[in-house]
């Protein structure tokens, strides 16, 4: 026998399918710290035109993540004061905006990669491997492999220290 907290306990997949409808697709903005720690923008890379463009795009992505995180953890809870309908509405808007921003950033990044790889050797510093790999290839050596277990480090359940348990 398996018993769930809310309905659809008999088939967890039913919950899975309806989860987004109930909650709204939720931006996992709480994990932006992980992202920021892995960005490898450096002033060195900004010395070239392509490097500058990538660096600027990274700053833009950081700003987007920061805004989304602030809204998710502070802005929306403060405005809605625990009202679930209000929260859902705002989270929905936040998610839509975030999806749009994601598409923009990824699109810009794809264009940058395309253009920079088509330019002359001077601009091939973008991601060129020192080991002599193909010109224009994105240097991914600084990127660490992601352990899926790492995700849980962003979520830790704690017993609140106050009777009302507000953050």
């Amino acid at each position: 026998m398996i018993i769930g907290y809310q309905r659809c306990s008999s088939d967890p997949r039913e919950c899975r399918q309806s989860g987004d409808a109930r909650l709204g697709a939720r931006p996992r903005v709480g994990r932006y710290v992980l992202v920021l720690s892995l960005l490898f923008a450096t002033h060195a890379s900004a010395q070239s035109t392509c490097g500058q463009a990538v660096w600027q795009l990274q700053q833009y992505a950081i700003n987007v993540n920061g805004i989304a995180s602030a809204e998710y953890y502070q802005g929306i809870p403060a405005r809605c004061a625990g009202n679930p309908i209000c929260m859902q509405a705002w989270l929905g808007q936040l998610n839509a905006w975030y999806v749009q921003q994601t598409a923009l950033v990824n699109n810009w990044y794809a264009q940058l990669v395309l253009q920079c790889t088509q330019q002359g050797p001077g601009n091939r510093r973008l991601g060129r491997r020192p080991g002599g790999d193909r010109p224009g290839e994105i240097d991914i050596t600084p990127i660490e492999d992601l352990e899926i277990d790492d995700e849980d480090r962003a979520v830790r359940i704690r017993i609140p220290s106050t009777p009302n348990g507000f953050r």
Partner: protein
Amino acid sequence: MTHSVSRRHVCGGLLCMGVLRLVAPANAQGQGRPICRFSIDGGWSNDAPAEYITRRARRNDVSGVPQVVERIKGELGIQVDFDIYIAEEEDNAMAAVANGRRILIVDVGFLERLNVIAGTGWGAIQVIAHEVGHHIAGFSAASHRNELNADYWSGQTLQRLGAARTAATRAIMAFGTEVDTPSHPNKYRRAATIERGWDDASRGVIDYAFCMDCR
């Protein structure tokens, strides 16, 4: 169980991964998602239906769930071992007995979102206490009775842990249903039962009518 997913295999670009990961985790994990084939009835098996259980929680797990369960056990004075599993994308928490083991399955991402929507960190604790309550009260074929029993024990637990009476019911009021479903009572009955458990605990009383296996 830990699986590695190389970022470079996901979308081949750093910014792409960095942003996409925040908004579309299902895509990011789709290629290497740790869907362990765990069956409540049969345990781990290649033939079991895939559950979105990522791993078994360690004693000092980063999710904090085992630590919360230990506190709950301490407050209620019970000495029962639980096998705790961390799930993803379930949007639920579950209690079960399999192969003689008492099992708790918790989607911590769901609990985090529940806290935000409920407006209190006690939301997640109430859910975990509710699942522990299933194991205290025992399981029967009467689904609504099971749920109300577990709710009562969650009310008992939250009062003992220091939650305000209003905070104890915020999660169920946010996520419960307006009307009865085949498996669960409506949220108003559930909230009333949580409050009853909270009230009893504040007076040092336990109503054993909410427990089938006690005494």
